[in-house]
């Protein structure tokens, strides 16, 4: 290959990359409409079903996974797998939900689905005992490690107020689409852990968040240009106290709910309001949500949104 050929190839590759980026942007900006009624839907809230069934209902309301995942897409799914805990203890996202989302992605034509989290406890134990590794693999996903710095690459956050740079996991950076799947939990530091807080499992260095205004840094990392195509909040079991880790089953509430939106601020606002029915937690104390709204990441004014409420 001579230099001219090389440059041509590079130009074509560059152009292809731009196209792909545009495709991604299209998905982000499109309005979602209910398949039957044609009504636009901003947020779906479901309660009363199993984790996988609630997801299937919600995604149908959003117009199906095909709206978000296109044929041949590389998809990254980011659950919360932070702790060496069994699913009953609500430390981690429900494995049945991860399995159902993976299947839906493949059904929509995804070429590859990757699941990972930067865990707090020993990652091997977390992946195994959360049940997520087995569930994801059984559904055909790849489960990727995230315990060493080599898996992360630095990005800049021009919109961030306090956090200007961060190292983000390659699975997100290399994906065409990513889906944010937190579990709703009480959190001793951030007060609640939902979609935005779940971003902390994408990054390598979390101490800097804690030492330089946690609530602002959470909002700052969420400004990274690649936004999740969907936020799916698992509230099948909720950790009401001693979060985010919990110490026993007495911290857990079986509440059977799920929230889904493209807007992370709206998703977190709805989940936070739901949490207040279990235990009082003023949403202004979960300051990263308001911080996210001021960074134009979404709206907290969910009463003005098209909300689809479903009871199963």
């Amino acid at each position, binding site marked *: 290959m001579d230099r001219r050929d090389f440059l041509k190839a590079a130009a074509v590759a560059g152009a292809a990359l731009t196209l792909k980026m545009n495709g991604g942007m299209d998905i982000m900006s499109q309005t979602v409409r209910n398949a039957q009624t044609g009504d636009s839907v901003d947020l779906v809230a479901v309660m009363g079903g199993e984790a996988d069934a609630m997801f299937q209902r919600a995604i149908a309301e959003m117009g199906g996974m095909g709206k978000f995942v296109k044929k041949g897409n590389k998809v990254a799914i980011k659950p919360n797998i932070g702790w060496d805990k069994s699913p*009953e203890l609500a430390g981690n996202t429900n494995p049945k939900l991860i399995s159902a989302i993976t299947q839906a992605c493949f059904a929509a034509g995804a070429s590859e689905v990757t699941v990972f989290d930067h865990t707090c406890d020993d990652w091997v*134990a977390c992946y195994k005992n959360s049940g997520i590794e087995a569930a994801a693999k059984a559904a055909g996903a790849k489960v990727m490690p995230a315990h060493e710095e080599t898996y992360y690459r630095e990005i800049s956050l021009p919109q961030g107020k306090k956090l200007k740079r961060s190292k983000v996991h390659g699975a997100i950076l290399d994906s065409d689409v990513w889906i944010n799947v937190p579990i709703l939990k009480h959190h001793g530091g951030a007060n609640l852990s939902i979609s935005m807080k779940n971003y902390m499992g994408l990054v390598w260095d979390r101490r800097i968040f804690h030492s330089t205004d946690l609530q602002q840094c959470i909002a700052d990392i969420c400004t990274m240009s690649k936004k999740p195509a969907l936020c799916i909040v698992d509230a099948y079991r909720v950790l009401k106290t001693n979060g985010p880790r919990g110490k026993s089953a007495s911290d857990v509430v079986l509440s059977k709910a799920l929230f889904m939106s493209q807007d992370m601020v709206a998703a977190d606002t709805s989940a936070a309001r739901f949490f207040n029915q279990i235990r009082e937690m003023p949403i202004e104390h979960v300051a990263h949500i308001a911080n996210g709204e001021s960074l134009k990441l979404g709206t907290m004014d969910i009463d003005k949104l098209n909300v689809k409420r479903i009871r199963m």
Partner: protein
Amino acid sequence: MLKTIRIIVSVLLFSTITFYFLDFSGVLPRFAGILPKLQFIPALLGLSIVTLAVLLTLTLLFGRAYCSSICPLGVFQDIISWFAKKTAKKKKRFKFNKAKTVLRWSMLALGMIAHQVGVTFLWGLLDPYSAFGRVATHVFKPIYVAGNNLLATIFTHFGNYTFYVIDNSILSVSTLLIALLTVAIVGLTAWKGGRTFCNTICPVGTFLGLLSKVSLFKVRIDADKCNRCSACAAKCKSSCIDSAGQTVDNSRCVVCFNCLGSCKKDALHFGLPAKKAAKTITDEPDASKRQFLASALVTAVAIPTALAEDKTKFISNKSAYTRQTPISPPGSLSAEHLLKHCTSCHLCISKCPTKVLKPAFMEYGIGGVMQPMMFFEKGFCNFDCTICSDICPNNALVHLTEEQKHTTQMGRVVFNQDICVVHTEGTNCGACAEHCPTQAVTMVPYKDGLTAPQTNPDICVGCGGCEFICPVRPYRAIFVEGNRVHQTAERIEEGKEQVLEFDDFGF
């Protein structure tokens, strides 16, 4: 035939125990963990009666089969010696040496006395299994991990996550140096003279040698058939066959059976006594050699000690706060128990999934140099994990069930409010409480919706989660102070999940 069996068994046991030390991802089946538990000094210190009975019986029946096949350092020397033979330009021949009886027994006595007076460090240096364990952990494993990391990088590049990257940094420079020195010394003596280490320094060799003198089966020379050609002595890696005197020093013989096939006259056999008793040999030690080895040993022990003192001063000058009491691993009961039982084979260090163990320097005192100690730079002790206490062959870490582990208090949390982020910056943090498995650190309302850490050391287990994650530098706002004697933490109440049904979503 006997030799072939010996080689097969040795290679099998050696490769399994070596790989057991390297195997971080659990490729080997669990029962491989029996091999460290078959080792002599660990069994002796851990009072594993069954293992001791098996090893003593084995020795009384067949001589030093332990040294021949079970001891990994023994087989390691055979491998080195085999390479030396293969690569030698001219044919390598062993020749008979007189027994270094005084040296051998001095080493044994020295090790035992050192152990009795609390300098287990020396006992650990001499124990062949522990010496090999340190070599495997600090020399072989980094090489293995480097290879793994290379594979992981390549495979990850192609979207395959079968291999994953593992941290490969040096845990302790002093221990690495000791391990390298061990490889160098044992390797060199093996290269030059086969099982020299086993018959001069090794206390296990000396003790089992005493028993093997009276073992039932032995290598014996039939004086009537023997023509004193010394072909057997040339094969003897223990240099214990005196063909001129037609005797085998069975206290040094490691029953490798290399000699048996070499005899053209069929004068050698391994078995029960023939009708004629073999001649006994007389020990005439070489005084100058003995003096040299003794002084070399004293130097070897003295130099690290001298270095150790320097390093401690350095550490205490540098840090404003240092842990007053080191945190000994779960199951160690107390620093004293650990000191008495641990020979620093570093199996626990190699196997710890969260890399929370490293060799101590002077934290436990001179006697406990190299013994495992908790540190929270790379991770913290997983609440549900009991691996180290499951695998310790010395019972230096006494086996803990998961329930026992949950209430074993290795240390207690200490909180320094003055430098905590919440108090100094007025922002949320909570990283410590987040990691606390017992909520010995919990976030309580502080002001303006902020929550601040509050500690309850009575329910703390000392896992170090809080210390590990605390973002405050250079000194952390929260850390664990070790318990010299482990205590029992108050048990966490196990409650039940609450089931709630809602009329509404809340919005």
